[in-house]
């Protein structure tokens, strides 16, 4: 049995013997994880990266427009992804960040992308810290993604289609693991993304500190990692596929109150 099984078994026994927890001994371990979230440290890091002058153009990101006007962060994340007229694209937070880092600061988009998803146990990437900082400025606000622009509706429907699209040697689409409640892969709880309450819990808790990786992870990483487990080729960072799925999920999660960083196993 893998190592983690032993730890959880021990936890489960601790609870069963204390006689206070009946229904779900695993919930206790999860609660313990929530109480002290190292992800908070990344917020300060992201704040510095946002306000400091950086890159070949020696500029900050203070003029970046995330949809509500240049530099306006409060309430911006809860409306993403959305259509941006200047790029002619539907963008999520991370792809919009790339646009600003390229245009305002002069960074090479491809170079930033290569490092966007950090290695486990590292200090994390600039994108991870920035995404968390910017999202945290919408903490306490409700997810409110709209489908006003035809391109937004296109993205939403494409995301829905992709959520149910089975392929590869596991015959998996998203829904095979995320279509029913109270399911687990081994000991890992699976979120039922067809249940509004559960999907709200997801969209309001990314970026999140990932305990097993010791770094903050973003929604782009979350999707990339699912495709890896599905035995499919690697999902490109800021690809339309990733943004379509995010559009679909975020819209389904409308009404959720943002509270980042989340804390994941």
């Amino acid at each position, binding site marked *: *049995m*893998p190592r*983690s*099984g032993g730890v*959880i*078994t021990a936890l*489960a026994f601790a609870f069963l013997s204390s006689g206070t927890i009946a229904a779900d001994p695993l919930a206790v371990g999860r609660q313990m994880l929530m109480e002290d979230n190292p992800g908070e440290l990344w917020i300060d890091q992201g704040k510095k990266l946002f306000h400091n002058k950086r890159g070949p153009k020696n500029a900050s990101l203070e003029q970046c427009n995330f949809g509500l006007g240049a530099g306006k962060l409060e309430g911006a994340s809860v409306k993403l992804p959305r259509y941006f007229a200047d790029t002619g694209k539907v963008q999520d937070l991370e792809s919009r960040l790339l646009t600003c880092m390229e245009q305002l600061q002069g960074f090479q988009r491809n170079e930033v992308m290569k490092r966007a998803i950090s290695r486990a146990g590292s200090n994390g990437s600039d994108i991870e810290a920035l995404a968390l900082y910017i999202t945290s400025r919408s903490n306490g606000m409700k997810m409110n993604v709209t489908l006003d622009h*035809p391109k937004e*509706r*296109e993205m*939403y*429907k*494409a995301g*829905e*289609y*992709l959520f*149910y*699209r*089975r*392929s*590869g*040697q*596991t*015959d*998996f*689409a998203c*829904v*095979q*693991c995320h*279509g*029913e409640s*109270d*399911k*687990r*892969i*081994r*000991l890992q709880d*699976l979120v039922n993304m*067809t249940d509004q309450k559960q999907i709200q819990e997801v969209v309001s808790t990314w970026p999140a500190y990932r305990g097993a990786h010791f770094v903050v992870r973003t929604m782009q990483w979350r999707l990339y990692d699912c*495709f*890896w*487990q599905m*035995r*499919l*080729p*690697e*999902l*490109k960072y800021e*690809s*339309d*596929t*990733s943004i*379509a799925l995010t559009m679909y999920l975020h819209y389904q999660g409308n009404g959720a109150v943002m509270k980042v960083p989340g804390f994941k196993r």
Partner: protein
Amino acid sequence: MKNSAWTVLGTVALIVTGCATFPDHATTRQIAEKMVGEDFTAPQPAQLKRLAQDRSQQICSKIGGAKLTQDEAAEVTRLARDSIRFPSSGKYAGDWKRGNALAHDGAGDRIQFGKLEARKENGGLCQNCHALAPGEINVGNVGPSLTGYGAQRGNSEAIAKYTYEKIYNAWTYFPCSNMPRLGASGHLTPEQITHLVAYLLDPLSPVNKK
């Protein structure tokens, strides 16, 4: 005259509201399939073919989990049955000990950081979704419990054949179920599947212990 004016107005209104609707399924499919074609990378170009859907996968990708028509269910079942290849040994049940290891192995064939996971053989993935031997806690519940599988069914030739077919291509019996078509997709070899059959059926296997 008046009536036709209203008709024109109504038509205009319809067209305007029409703009605020979603693209139809055929359009969505075209847009999304184009994305799938452009948005993935793999160390070997041939591995990108993993994203292409076969006929059964297309049928089994209904939005919102809508029910299959009778014809669709029949087609998936027929394609599944036709896909099955039996082991060259002619025996459905192999070595339960090797099956035990395979059932608890969730690795193999994943692609990360531009590399294909290097493995002698793929894991069987069973533990991810199924309860196995009694008392094992690190098991999933996406699929039904397999604890006592052989103890409940016996290990006749007919049960062994059914079990082999079920693992080789689960859609033979349950079209479009969540279970991967492990043999048909090439994830597992026929020989590996015989070991899993033995693991499920052999009275000595931990699955069938009290």
